[in-house]
C-alpha cells in the first residue's frame, strides 16, 4: 500500500505496534517514553481484566447512561428528500453531553491503576475538558485543563462547568489560542509532572498508545449502534457518518463497521473565509503532537493554524488511523463548511427538537448534502447487497454531542454583520 518514498528515507516504519500503515508512532521527548510504556502495559492488562471491564461497564451504564439511544429522525430525513431512513446515535445524551466521557471513564480507571493523583487535559469545545473534570471529581483526583483563550470565549458555559467541577482551567495564550496550542501546553505540563500526573488526551491523536486506546474506549459507540440498527432495521446500515476533528467519535463509530459492507464517511470542517481544518482533505503527512498523520503545514513544515466555527474541530492534525483509512480508501473523507454546518444545526433544532453540537452538525450537513445528490445516492444503492436495491437507504449519523455550549457563539454570530455566516440562515 505504502510507497517507499512515503517512509521518508527509512525514518518512518510501516506497520508494527502503534502504527496504522506508516502513520502513528511515538514522537515525544525522551522524558515521556517510560510513561508511555507504562500506560501501554497497564492498558493492555486492563483490556483483558474482567474486573476492569466490569467496573467500566457499570460506570458506562449507571453514571453515563449507556446505552445511548439510536433515534430515527423522521422530520430531518424528510427534509433531506425522503429517500433515506436516518438514525441518530445519541451520544449527546451521555452524562456531560458528548461522547468524550466514554474515553475519560476508561482512562481515569487506568490513571488510578497507575497511582496518579492528578489529571491533565486539553480541550477545544470544552466537552473533553468537562468530561475530564467530571471523572476527576468522581475519582477524587486533581485536574488541570488547558484551553485556548479564543475557545474559552466561544465555549464559555463549559469553562464555568469545569470550574464548578473543581478543575483548574488554564488559558493558553500562544499561537492561535485554540486546540492545537492547548494540546502543546498540556504536553508541556505532562513532561514536567509525569511522575504523578496522567494526561487524558481527548481524541485519537498523540503518541501510541493513545490513538488505539482512545478508539477502543470509544468503540462502544459503534458496537451499540450496530446492535441497535440490527434490532430496529433488521439489517446493517448502508452508510455511517461522523464528523472528524482529531477523530475519536468517528473512530468509535467506524470501529464496529470496518469489516461490514457499510459505506463510511468522515466529515472534516471546511471552515470559511478564515481557513479550514480539513487535514485529511487538504493536508499532507507530518508529525504533530507525537504521531505521524495528515497535517496542515506550510512548505517549510511549519504547522498552519486551522479554522472552524466548531472549536472541537479546529485542529490542524487528525488521528493516524484516519490517515490510514483514507489511504486505503476504506473511509471516504469529505468536508462541510461553517455555513452548511450552521444550516444543519438550525434544521435539527427546529425539525427534531434536538440542539446538536456544531461539531456534530458537520455530519448532519454532510448527510443532507449527500441525500440531495441523486448520483451519490444511486451509487450507494448500486453498491448494496442484492435484494436490497429497492428499499430506502439506511443511514446512521453519530450525534456526538449536544449544542447548548454553542449558544454563546450562535448569539454572537447573530450580532455580527454578515461575513460568511449569514448565508447559513
Amino acid at each position, binding site marked *: 500500500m505504502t510507497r517507499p518514498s512515503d517512509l521518508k528515507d527509512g525514518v518512518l516504519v510501516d506497520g508494527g505496534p502503534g502504527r496504522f500503515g506508516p502513520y502513528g508512532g511515538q514522537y515525544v*521527548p525522551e*522524558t515521556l517514553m517510560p510513561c508511555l510504556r507504562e500506560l501501554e502495559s497497564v492498558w493492555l492488562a486492563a483490556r483483558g481484566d474482567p474486573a476492569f471491564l466490569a467496573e467500566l461497564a457499570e460506570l458506562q451504564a449507571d453514571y453515563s447512561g449507556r446505552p445511548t439511544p439510536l433515534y430515527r429522525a423522521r422530520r430531518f430525513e424528510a427534509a433531506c428528500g425522503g429517500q433515506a431512513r436516518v438514525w441518530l446515535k445519541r451520544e449527546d445524551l451521555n452524562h456531560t453531553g458528548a461522547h468524550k466521557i466514554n474515553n475519560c471513564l476508561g482512562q481515569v480507571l487506568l490513571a488510578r491503576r497507575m497511582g496518579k493523583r492528578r489529571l491533565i487535559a486539553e480541550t477545544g469545545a470544552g466537552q473533553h475538558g468537562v468530561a475530564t473534570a467530571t471523572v476527576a471529581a468522581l475519582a477524587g483526583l486533581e485536574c488541570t485543563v488547558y484551553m485556548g483563550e479564543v475557545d474559552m470565549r466561544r465555549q464559555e458555559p463549559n469553562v464555568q462547568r469545569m470550574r464548578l467541577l473543581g478543575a483548574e482551567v488554564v488559558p493558553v495564550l500562544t499561537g492561535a489560542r485554540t486546540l*492545537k496550542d492547548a494540546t502543546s501546553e498540556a504536553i508541556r505540563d505532562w513532561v514536567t509532572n509525569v*511522575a504523578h500526573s496522567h494526561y487524558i488526551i481527548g481524541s485519537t491523536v498523540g503518541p501510541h498508545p493513545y490513538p488505539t486506546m482512545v478508539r477502543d474506549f470509544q468503540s462502544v459507540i459503534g458496537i451499540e449502534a450496530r446492535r441497535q440498527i440490527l434490532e430496529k432495521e433488521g439489517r446493517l446500515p448502508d452508510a455511517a457518518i461522523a464528523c472528524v476533528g482529531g477523530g475519536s467519535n468517528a473512530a468509535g463509530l467506524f470501529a464496529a463497521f470496518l469489516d461490514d459492507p457499510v459505506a463510511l464517511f468522515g466529515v472534516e470542517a471546511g471552515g470559511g473565509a478564515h481557513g479550514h481544518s480539513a487535514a485529511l482533505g487538504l493536508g499532507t503527512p507530518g508529525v504533530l503532537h507525537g504521531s505521524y498523520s495528515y497535517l496542515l503545514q506550510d512548505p517549510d*513544515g511549519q504547522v498552519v493554524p486551522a479554522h472552524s466555527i466548531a472549536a472541537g474541530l479546529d485542529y490542524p492534525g487528525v488521528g493516524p488511523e484516519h490517515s490510514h483509512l483514507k489511504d486505503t480508501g476504506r473511509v471516504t473523507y469529505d468536508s462541510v463548511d461553517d455555513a452548511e454546518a450552521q444550516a444543519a444545526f438550525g434544521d435539527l433544532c427546529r425539525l427534531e427538537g434536538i440542539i446538536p453540537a456544531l461539531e456534530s452538525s458537520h455530519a448532519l450537513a454532510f448527510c443532507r448534502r449527500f441525500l440531495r445528490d441523486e448520483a451519490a445516492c444511486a451509487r450507494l444503492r448500486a453498491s448494496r447487497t442484492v435484494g436490497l436495491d429497492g428499499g430506502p437507504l439506511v443511514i446512521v449519523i453519530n450525534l456526538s454531542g449536544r449544542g447548548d455550549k454553542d449558544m454563546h457563539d450562535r448569539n454572537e454570530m447573530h450580532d455580527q454583520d454578515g461575513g460568511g455566516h449569514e448565508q447559513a440562515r
Partner: protein
Amino acid sequence: MSRLGDLTAALRRDGVRPVVPFVTAGYPDDEACRGALRGLKDAGCRLVEIGVPFSDPVADGPVIQAASQRALVQGMTPARSLELAAWAGRELDLTVVLMGYLNPVLHRGPAAFARDCAAAGVAGVIVPDLPLDEAAGLRRVLGPVDVDLISLVAPTTDEARLRRHAESAAGFLYLVSTTGVTGAGAGAGDELEAYADRVRAVCALPLYVGFGVGTPAQAARVAGCADGAIVGSALLRRLADAADPDAARTAAATFVTDLYRSMNPEADAPVKGDRS
C-alpha cells in the same frame, strides 16, 4: 570517531568543561543573532547549538517558544537556519550542533536534510521529539555524512534504556537535567549528581547537562558531576533586550564568560577574540 566526537573528546582530554550555548536562529533578529554568535566566539566557545525555529516546540518552555515565534514572524526558515550555521562555521570557526523538531526534517526529506547539514558543516543534530525508539532511521542517513544524532536521556530513563542509548549515542550524551521543558526555573534537580553517576556508569561519552542551567552556581554544580553545560533560555533572555548586534555580542560574551569561569575556576580567563 566523528568530527563532533573528536572535539568533545579533546575538550575532555584538555580538562575543559565547556559551556555550550544555544541560540535560536534569527533571534532577536538576523544581525543580532550573528552578533551573539560573535560574542560566543569572543568568550572562547568552540561548540554552539543553533535552534531551527518551529511552530509547535513542545519540549520548550516560554522563553524558547517566544524566541521561535519571533524568529518565524521575522521570516526565519529551516534553509536560512542552515545558512546561519554555515556562516558560524566558516566565519567564526565554531562547531555547530543544530537543534530542530522532526516535522521540518521529514518535510524536507531526511536524506536531503542530511546533505544540507553536511554542506553547512553541521557536526551534530538534536531532534527533541525523536526518542531512541524512532531514531535509527535518521541516524542511518546522518552517519555517512559525519553528522551525529545526539541522544537525550532524562531522569525518567531507566538502566535498560540508558544502555541502549549508550550503544547508539555519539558526539556527546545530552542529559536533560529535570523532567520538564527548557528553561524551567528550578535548574539542576536534587538528584543531579546521582543521576550523572548512573549515566556515567553505562556511557563513556562526555555528558553535557541541559534544561534549566542558567546561573554560574548551577553551571558550577554541573561541572562538578558532568563534562559540560548547555545553556539556552537564560542566554536568550539576555539577548531579548539587545538593541543591536554589538549589544548582543557583548551580552552573550559576558554571560557565557561568567558561566565558563564558574565551571573552570582553575583556568585562565578565556582568550578574547579580535573585535577590531
